[in-house]
């Protein structure tokens, strides 16, 4: 595959491409935070359920304290997502795309 020049032109595509200068896509938030927060919430709820699980519930799950284990795992996963976002924040958008007040 050579990289000489541009692909074929098409008026419909070109119109849409030209409009992309106004794109607001740089204002998109980071999904890692939402995933992290939802899983932290799930982790806390399910871990607490697990702490207070009765014998019957543990027996139903074949003797595994599944709520406790699943809850702690989800909590850890949620925290890892938040940590990842904190350590490697999304790259800032190019200056010409940046919005006032964003």
């Amino acid at each position: 595959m050579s990289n000489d020049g541009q692909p074929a032109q098409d008026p419909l595509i070109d119109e849409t491409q030209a409009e992309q200068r106004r794109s607001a896509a740089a204002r998109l938030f980071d999904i890692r935070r939402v995933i992290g927060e939802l899983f932290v919430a799930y982790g806390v709820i399910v871990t607490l359920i697990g702490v207070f699980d009765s014998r019957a519930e543990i027996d139903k799950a074949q003797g595994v304290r599944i709520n406790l284990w699943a809850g702690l795992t989800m909590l850890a996963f949620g925290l890892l997502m938040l940590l990842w976002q904190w350590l490697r924040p999304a790259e800032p958008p190019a200056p010409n795309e940046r919005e006032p007040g964003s």
Partner: protein
Amino acid sequence: MDGGGLRLNMNGLDYLILALYFVTVLGVGFAARRAIRTSVDFFLSGRSLPAWVTGLAFVSANLGALEIIGMAANGAQYGVMTVHYYWIGAVPAMVFLGIVMMPFYYGSKVRSVPEYLRLRFNRPTHLLNALSFAVAQVLIAGVNLYALALVMQALLGWPLWTAIGVGAAIVLAYITIGGLSGAIYNEVLQFFVILAGLIPVTVIGLVKVGGVSGLMDAVRDSKLGEAGLHAWQDTGSTANPLGAQWIGIVFGLGFVLSFGYWTTNFAEVQRALSAKNMSAARRTPIIAAYPKLFIPLVTVIPGLVALVTVKGLGAESGDLQYNNAIPLLMRDLLPNGVLGVAVTGLLASFMAGMAANVSGFNTVFTYDIWQAYLRPGRSDDYYLRIGRWATVAAVVIGIGTAFIAAGFSNIMNYIQALFSLFNAPLFATFIIGMFWKRMSALAGFWSLLLGTLASLATYLLYKGGVIDFNSDLEESFWGAGIAFVTVAIVAVILTPLTAPKRDEELRGLVYGMGGVDLKGDVLAGDAVWYRSPVLLGLVAVALAALFYIPVF
């Protein structure tokens, strides 16, 4: 067991987990709204997303509940042979899409898969594909919605129409408001929630049967027997659970069917087109291939556990159908808490599937039908508005289809089978057009049309009893193969008789014509060796091959 069939014993905390999910999904839709100003923002997320997001959305768009429930059912019915649908029937095609085809899709800046056909061939080819895709997506969205409602009715006791209404309203809200970003972000979230729901079922299921070795012993004593533990043994004949020979598995499933589905289905490819640069677009389906390698662990294993622990599984109708393998395990094994997460995961997967159909539809309808043929030359804002209305229309038609499905569920199975017939001829037309620059526009149109008719005719003759195959699966292998050959023959006969396209019209669309720039938009960090699409792709294919060794 409380005698209430599949009815789960959900308590308030389980419902809290479900409600939190619904609120989050809607919140993601609203939060994505501020990032939408142009039509590309709405339909393609402004081509701004990182590869890991588009990659997980790519795999999630395929993880509809029909897929999860269906593959667990196949696991119970056919045993380990079900892994063929993942390791040979998905991974190679996903890698091929990323390495070979994505440079043409992403590099030519087309806004949809049908649009590629408009540039490469002509408007009739484009219209044929755009219309068949649009119709298929809204009908399949309805099938997904109906399946969602059936599960909510069986598991939670919700009336069918309440369940259809709630499911449709949530998907409608987050796509109309948040556009493709809303859909993709929710798909990434859904991916993790689906796994969080399926892993506990798998783990406790394995504990119950005494681990992997206990499961293997139990499967040997089941109706599947030793054959249920092997993927390739006995594929020299059709005397295996799947009833398929190795040649049918390799060429039918592994080549024609899977390449047709993964490489030309816009509901999938759209996720890659929303990536932020060429490297991210190429890595999208390849990153998706890695979770795909491991998903059989949480579908096939629960299927096998259900086979050996649920007495009487495999009934023709009622609660003990194979399709209920995962819901039955959830009922029997999960205590409140993880039960709520598992139900949420199941509902998440239905929404992921339907959202993929709806977001694929609104883009093709707006760009490929409305802008190209009905109302060209309007402002970008106008098409953005049309896209929102197209979303509403898709969901409303989907609800209508769900109503029809409720009355005639068999007809819906046929509709879905019919649309799967379109994939093989479409892939053949694409692949020949991408690599043979001489193939003419007229040949493109007639190849696609006659190939589709050939595949349709094979299907109808089989259903009508005129020609005979061992199984539906064998019919689909042969139908796809016949369609592929028809496309190739029509292209070879018609091309010399018709005018070629000019070379400059084919730049960036056809192999060897130039105009494809793999590195021009590369970002700092994308050049490192472990982000090379070719390397990542080859490792995925090698892993798929290695995974077969213990279950040969």
